[in-house]
C-alpha cells in the first residue's frame, strides 16, 4: 500500500543535496555540530530532539531519535518523560492563550 510516509525514505535524507548541494552541505554540517557533545551532552540533546520530534509530529524524527536515544543509553522511562515535556509544553501553549480568551470575556461582559 502506498502512503505519504515511507520508512525507506528516511535513508534517503542524506541525498537531499541532489537538488541543492551547497545548502544541503551547510545544513548537514550544522546539524552534525549541533548534536556533538557540548555544554549539553549528546544524550541530553537526543532526548530534546525526541521531544521536539513529537511536538512537530515527524515520524522520521521519532523513529530516528528513538533509536538514537536507545543507543545513547536512555531508558523507556526517560524517553517517555521527554515526550511528556513536549506534550506539557503543547498543552501549556494552548492553555496560556486562554488568558486572552479570559481577558476578552471580561472585557465584553457586564
Amino acid at each position: 500500500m502506498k502512503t505519504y510516509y515511507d520508512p525507506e525514505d528516511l535513508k534517503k535524507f542524506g541525498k537531499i543535496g541532489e537538488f541543492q548541494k551547497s545548502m544541503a552541505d551547510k545544513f548537514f554540517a550544522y546539524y552534525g555540530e549541533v548534536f556533538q557533545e557540548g555544554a549539553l551532552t549528546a544524550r541530553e540533546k537526543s532526548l530534546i530532539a525526541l521531544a521536539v520530534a513529537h511536538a512537530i509530529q515527524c515520524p522520521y524524527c521519532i523513529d530516528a531519535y528513538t533509536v538514537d536515544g536507545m543507543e545513547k543509553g536512555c531508558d523507556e522511562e526517560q524517553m517517555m518523560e521527554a515526550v511528556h515535556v513536549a506534550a506539557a509544553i503543547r498543552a501549556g501553549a494552548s492553555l496560556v492563550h486562554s488568558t486572552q480568551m479570559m481577558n476578552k470575556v471580561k472585557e465584553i461582559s457586564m
Partner: protein
Amino acid sequence: MKSLKAQNHPLSNTQYELQLLESQKTGISFSEKLAECGLYPLLPTQIEILQINLGKMCNQVCKHCHVDAGPDRKEIMAFETMQECLEVIKKHDVGTVDLTGGAPEMNPHFKWFVEKIRQLKPKATIIVRCNLTIILANPKFKDLPEFFRQHQVEVVSSLPYFTAIKTDAQRGEGVFEKSIKALQMLNMVGYGQENSGLMLNLVYNPAGAFLPGSQEGLETEFKKRLKSQYGISFNSLYTITNLPISRFLEYLLRSGNYESYMEKLIEAYNPIAASNVMCRNTISVGWDGYLYDCDFNQMLELKVSCQNSQHIKDWNLEILNNREIVINQHCFGCTAGAGSSCGGATA
C-alpha cells in the same frame, strides 16, 4: 531457558549459521569492504593476547550469548589442554592472557590455572571475564573477589544497563540484583577503587537490535548512576556490538530485525575500526585446544587458516603471525561505528 544446542535448534549448527549469513547477504561482502581500504586479505599485526575459552558451561543463559552457553553445556577445557596452554604461555612473550567462557570459574581447574599463569608471568595482564552472578551462585565461589585480588587479575564483567528491567531482559530474571551485590563485593576488596591497581571494567552490550552509542558518554552515565544508586565504582566501560551469530542471530531472525540490523552494520562500516579489529593481535583457544582468530570465529567453528598450527599443542608463532584471518559477514559487527572488540571501541 535452554541453549540452542539443547533445543536442537537449527542455528546450533554452525554450517547452517554460515549458510544463512552468506545467503541473506545484504549488499556488499566484508572482504569487498576490506579491499576498498586496502585491508584484504586481513593479516595479523602481532599476537599480543591469548584468549582462552575455558568452556561453554555457564550458570546463566543470556538471550544474546554468542557462545550459546548455559548450564546444559558440558564442553569444558580439560586439564591436559590447560597444561598445553601453559607451555605456550611459558615459551612466548604473551602480554595478556584473557580467560573467558561460559563462566570460566566453573571449570574445576580454574584456580589452579590462574595460579600457574601468574607464577609463569608475574607481570602479564590476566583478565577474567566474570559474569558476576557466579560469585553468588554457590558458596564455593564466594571467595572469588579475594582470589582475583591475590593474583592481580583484571576483572571484566557484563552489565548491559544500570536498571534491573533491561539487564534482566537480556541476562535473565534476578541477574541485575545479584550483579550489583557482586560488584559491591569486588569494590569491597579494592576493585575499581582509585589507586588500588585492581581493575574492574564493565561491558555494555545493547539489549536489542541497535548499536552501542559513544563509549565515553555511556561510561559517564553508568558511573554516575551506579555510584549514586548503589555506591559502586569501576574503571572503564567497554561498549561491545552484538555480532549476528548464535543466540543474538536467533533473536534478530525471530524479531524480524535481521536485515535492518545487517544493513545498519554495513552502513556504519568504519575503516579505522577495520584496521584495529582484535583478531589482528589475538589468538583465541577453544575449550578443546583448537585455535581461532577470535571468540566469534570459534563459535562458528572457523579454525585459523594455517593447517600446521591449528591446535595449541602444535603452536607455531611464526606460522600464526603469517596466517590470513578468516572472515565472513558477521565481521561487520566489529567494524561498525566506533568499532567493537573484547576491549570495547576500537576507533
